[in-house]
């Protein structure tokens, strides 16, 4: 088994570098190490200037998504062993602007999340003192899958449409909209339609399907988008065929 592994990391410090470049480091190989452990080794032992985001290192905070050998992964749950004998190439997430090294610009994504109104919308709010809204396990299972998104943005880095059409709302945000649309406590789908059926919305999706493949939490955003397309199409036909019906 290899004693050392070569790690090539994309470096970019705007103060110094006109353009990003790959820097190579050599780290010891440990069977129990994930990619993030290798990066931490570089930062602690070799080069303190390497910047990247990480926090929970148990696959739930969504900070440490990067491209490893051209595929977006959470580096805290991707073992180094998988890439032997190396070298391993680590780059910031595709299609996002790079602030520095492996850190990408996230505000655009956060804005998209906000645009789909990801909160419970009701015509009338019930005061908390009156108790919970009922929701059977079946009703819960209607949207549970879409509520598992950790906002790691791997699906955006896997989606060529996001790259080619930066305004596209994107997989995670649409899945999040569906998370609320399928929640029996919510009454806000019509308000979300404004964004999702717009030019930047679901019809931008050409069903590459990679968003669902790279999703570490099996949210299946591709499925969420296709289901919304069916809903959107049904609503359109209904409005054409029943113009005087209830909107």
């Amino acid at each position, binding site marked *: 088994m290899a004693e050392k592994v070569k790690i090539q990391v994309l470096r970019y410090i*705007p103060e110094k570098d006109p353009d990003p470049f790959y820097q190579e480091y050599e780290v010891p190989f440990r069977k129990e190490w994930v990619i993030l452990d290798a990066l931490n080794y570089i930062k602690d032992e070799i080069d303190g200037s390497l910047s990247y985001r990480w926090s929970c290192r148990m696959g739930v905070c969504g900070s440490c998504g990067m491209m490893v050998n051209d595929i977006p992964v959470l580096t805290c749950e991707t073992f180094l062993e998988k890439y032997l004998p190396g070298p391993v190439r680590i780059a910031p997430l595709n299609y996002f602007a790079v602030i520095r090294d492996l850190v990408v610009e996230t505000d655009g994504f956060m804005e998209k999340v906000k645009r789909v109104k990801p909160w419970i919308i009701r015509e009338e709010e019930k005061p908390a003192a009156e108790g919970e809204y009922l929701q059977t396990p079946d009703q819960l299972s209607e949207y549970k899958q879409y509520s598992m998104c950790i906002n790691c943005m791997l699906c955006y880095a896997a989606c060529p449409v996001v790259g080619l059409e930066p305004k596209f709302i994107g997989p995670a945000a649409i899945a999040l909209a569906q998370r609320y649309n399928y929640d029996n406590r919510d009454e806000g789908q019509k308000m979300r339609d404004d964004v999702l059926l717009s030019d930047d919305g679901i019809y931008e999706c*050409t069903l590459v*399907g990679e968003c669902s*493949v790279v999703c570490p939490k099996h949210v*299946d955003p591709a499925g969420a988008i296709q*289901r919304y397309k069916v809903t959107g199409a049904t609503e359109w036909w209904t409005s054409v065929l029943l113009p005087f019906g209830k909107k």
Partner: protein
Amino acid sequence: MPAYERFRPKPYHSKISIFWWIKRKPYVLFIIRELTSIFVAIYAIILIIQIHAMAQGPDTWDALMISFSMPGSILLHVVILIFLLFHTFTWFKLAPKAMVLKIGKKRIPGSLIIAGNFIMWILLSAGIAWLVMSA
């Protein structure tokens, strides 16, 4: 790109090459699907031409049929048939993504939805074939 100024970020935007899809198999398959859909569109046009010819009367129809029997045209139809089958398969494979069907509390597995689509397709094709044959 402008030079770095203190306290003003200078994010790097990478450019997307037109060959972005060549690096990974799923993207290549996607592009193949997109490009070959042109043939599906061509066949839709051919169908419209056929209907048009039918409306014009038997003479036009016969002329069209003769042109269809040319080797080039047969080759085109074979190519179209292959791509249509390819699209039928990939389309059915994707069906469970858009369809969430339930029996009682259990979600019907995707494989059953795919199988259902294929069965319907075969049954409908057989029905049409029977109509044509018995005419």
